[in-house]
């Protein structure tokens, strides 16, 4: 196994007075895909959102413990915009901005203060290439992003995240709103993208976790129950709760 880009130590998380994550300890390997699975309400999405401090958007939320990103504690960082350019997020439903395809991808670059038109153009193209969308949109970059199909919109959102050259991409059920063909394209893209980024994906689809991820973690009632290499996780899990969950015998 390579280096760990993220190290989670004794992480607890509270929505107000309600604790939803309990003493999570877990490392994420660089340039690998880690899938987070578990029943609804188990804390997997809450856990994912800790990595780019999405919870800071709401008052009263509280973290305890450490999340070390390249040995620096994310929970003590002050610049969330910089953090979110290094740790990008792709949501369940595609979220293109109401602007052109080009401007969507260039948005993050402008936010970072990159104004040189040639550089912006080059990086938009590279990001669209990286998201496997360039061939489909290169002749209509000024068209509204809302005119793209669901799968294309999701790849556009990935391109927007890629344009600012993130180290980590967080995917929150990225294909649950897509058809099987668009899903397959996103999954192929994720596997391709791990050459340049680390991916953490929350998914309800166990087959997807098995297909794309290198490591899988199972959460239940806010606790990390088991994490292992995906091929071992799905063939010989060590924990009885994991075994019951992946065999569909839970509850």
């Amino acid at each position, binding site marked *: 196994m390579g280096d760990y880009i993220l190290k989670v130590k004794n992480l607890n998380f509270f929505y107000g007075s309600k604790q939803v994550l309990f003493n999570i300890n877990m490392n994420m390997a660089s340039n690998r895909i880690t899938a987070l699975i578990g029943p609804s309400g188990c804390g997997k999405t809450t856990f994912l959102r800790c990595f780019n401090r999405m919870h800071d958007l709401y008052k009263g939320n509280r973290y305890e413990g450490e999340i070390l990103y390249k040995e620096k504690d994310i929970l003590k960082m002050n610049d969330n915009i910089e953090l979110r350019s290094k740790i990008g997020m792709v949501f369940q439903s595609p979220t293109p901005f109401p602007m052109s395809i080009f401007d969507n991808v260039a948005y993050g670059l402008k936010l970072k203060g990159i104004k040189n038109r040639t550089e912006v153009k080059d990086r938009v193209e590279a990001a669209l290439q990286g998201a496997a969308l360039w061939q489909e949109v290169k002749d209509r970059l000024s068209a509204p992003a809302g005119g793209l199909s669901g799968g294309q919109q999701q790849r556009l959102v990935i391109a927007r995240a890629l344009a600012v050259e993130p180290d980590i991409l967080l995917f929150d059920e990225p294909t649950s709103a897509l058809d099987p063909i668009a899903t397959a394209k996103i999954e192929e893209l994720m596997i391709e993208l791990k050459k340049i980024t680390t991916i953490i994906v929350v998914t309800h689809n*166990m087959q997807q976790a098995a297909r794309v991820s290198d490591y899988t973690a199972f959460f239940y009632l806010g606790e990390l129950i088991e994490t292992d290499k995906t091929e071992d996780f*799905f*063939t*010989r899990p060590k924990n009885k709760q*994991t075994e019951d969950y*992946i*065999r*569909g015998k839970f509850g």
Partner: protein
Amino acid sequence: MKYVEEKYSQIRAMLAEMSKVAQSMMEDSIKALLRGDKELAKNVKKRDGIVDRFDNDIEDVCFKVLAMYDPKAFDLRFVMSALRIIVDLERIGDSSVNIAKQVKHIDSSCTQNFSSKINEMATAAKGMLEASIEAFFKNDTPLALETIKKDDYIDKLNKQIITDIINYISLNPQHVKSGVSLVYIARNIERIADHATNICEFVYFKKTGKSIRHTYFDKINENKEDG
């Protein structure tokens, strides 16, 4: 019960039936040989079609379960091992037919000379087969490992019988044909024990997720605790 659970039960039930038929074929082929009972030998041959049908039917259900339900963990290992042991059971049926086919070629005096040794070997192989099937249905890995150990004894008996038969036909050249048939029979009994060993190896895989195929027994014992 969930629909997929019904499928697992169906596979288990068909495997139990297939095992029963394969075991009865093995038992009756030896009986036919030792008694010179050509009718019973014919009956063994007839049952081969039943085993073949189970082989196809179980494979078909497993194939559908894999395609439609994407089993995981123990369920996946169960389906995988079912797919593997039907091959062994089908070949046990074939070996039993091979034994039964020799009944008409063997001179009874020749059989009598070797009946006790053939019987000893067949009883040991039959014991292994019964134990392997019991271990499969009970997920009993200690029984499976004990049974695997017994294969060496069968191999030893096989070698001994072959040496004795060669010595016998060198002194009784009129019984060459019967002698060759007996060598063939011994070889098939030994193969049945090998198939029982394979079944035991899949019992271990099904329970632990670890493969012990092509592993020396000492090595298996070393790893036994973490299994």
